[in-house]
């Protein structure tokens, strides 16, 4: 039996009074939430000039934003969670809303957005009218619109599997975000945390994805983008990346390509002819 809350009930049901109460009574949950939102705020990389910004908190995450002096607007679908927030007299404004219906905000007004463990809820269809893909699209589309140009969104997610991660990331790239996933502590099963770091606008130097924490030694995956880097950004999906990776020149694939392929076959244990000066050489025209 899975312990994932997403599989147990829709968010507005799951976060009932009992569950929401844990966010004030359990010091462990409070600490985890606080750490996550501190890290998210760090990844948000707001300019360090002491000016408070207007931030958006999607799925209430705690009081970190106020502690750092920022003004914020919080959105949650669970009335119980909002009641708890009221009880704790948080300083931001609260909204009862469903992020899958899109955020009803004017364009370009928000300086940054964070979200802790909320976006993966969109991958579940809790009602017959829910289509995860459309809900993700509505969410990311409206998030993209309401962020100021160059604004960042840091979304901490717990995708259930690779397909979910792909779906979330693809939806984000599809509406125009650039960015990628930052993984903290990739080798630990419990401490491992994934953050989607998205930037509004085309990729540039300032939109490069920061590196994660807790990476020592080489990257574990055989992913191309992280294969030769020592940091732990696991994958960078960029919608502006040219679609065809393999370059096919007019001359054909060339000797290097043939040698590479032969090497691959050899490693697989296949019977491959040796490399000689004749390898991949063109035949004469009269042949």
């Amino acid at each position: 039996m899975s312990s994932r809350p997403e599989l147990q009930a829709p968010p507005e049901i799951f976060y009932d009074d009992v569950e929401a109460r844990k966010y004030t009574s359990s010091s462990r949950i409070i600490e985890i939430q606080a750490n996550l939102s501190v890290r998210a705020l760090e990844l948000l990389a707001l300019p360090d000039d002491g000016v408070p910004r207007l931030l958006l908190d999607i799925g209430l995450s705690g009081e970190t934003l106020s502690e750092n002096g920022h003004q914020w607007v919080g959105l949650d679908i669970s009335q119980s969670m909002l009641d708890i927030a009221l009880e704790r007299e948080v300083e931001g404004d609260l909204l009862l809303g469903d992020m899958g219906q899109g955020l009803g905000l004017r364009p370009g007004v928000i300086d940054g957005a964070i979200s802790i463990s909320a976006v993966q809820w969109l991958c579940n269809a809790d009602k017959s009218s829910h289509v995860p893909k459309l809900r993700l699209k509505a969410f990311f589309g409206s998030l993209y619109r309401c962020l100021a140009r160059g604004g960042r969104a840091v979304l901490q997610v717990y995708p259930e599997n690779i397909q979910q991660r792909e779906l979330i990331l693809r939806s984000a790239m599809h509406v125009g975000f650039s960015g990628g996933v930052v993984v903290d502590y990739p080798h630990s099963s419990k401490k491992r945390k994934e953050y989607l770091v998205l930037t509004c606008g085309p990729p540039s130097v300032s939109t490069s994805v920061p590196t994660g924490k807790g990476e020592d030694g080489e990257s574990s995956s055989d992913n191309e983008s992280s294969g030769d880097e020592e940091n732990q950004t696991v994958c960078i999906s960029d919608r502006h990346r040219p679609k065809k990776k393999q370059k096919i020149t007019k001359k054909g694939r060339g000797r290097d390509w043939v040698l590479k392929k032969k090497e691959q076959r050899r490693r697989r244990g296949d019977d491959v002819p040796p490399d000689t000066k004749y390898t991949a050489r063109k035949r004469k025209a009269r042949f």
Partner: protein
Amino acid sequence: MRLLTHNMLSSNIKGVSNGFPLRIEVEKVAEKQVDFNADFLRNMFPKIEWKAFVDAAKTIGYAELPEEVDSSALESEEFLNKFHHALLELHLEEGALVCPETGRRFPVSKGIPNMLLHEDEV
């Protein structure tokens, strides 16, 4: 809910092209002290839809704001104080927000607007 948030919110109902500004129906207004920060106000000023902001402030009973301003007003301490008070210290506690195009009411209770849409509005 503060007027800051009201100024950012727009109606999200499917098919509505101009869901801003949401009309305010007032039942109860509260006032809470917030630390004054001039930098934040200067930063927010260009993002505020001024007309909607002045109208909203009037609706909840604060008529001190000038009808028209430009950025030179930000030099004045007096203006900043009024701006700060209207933007951050006045809360709509009970009432409703009404979509200007469809007339759909979004109830506000305990300062939290309920922006959840029905299935046919998505």
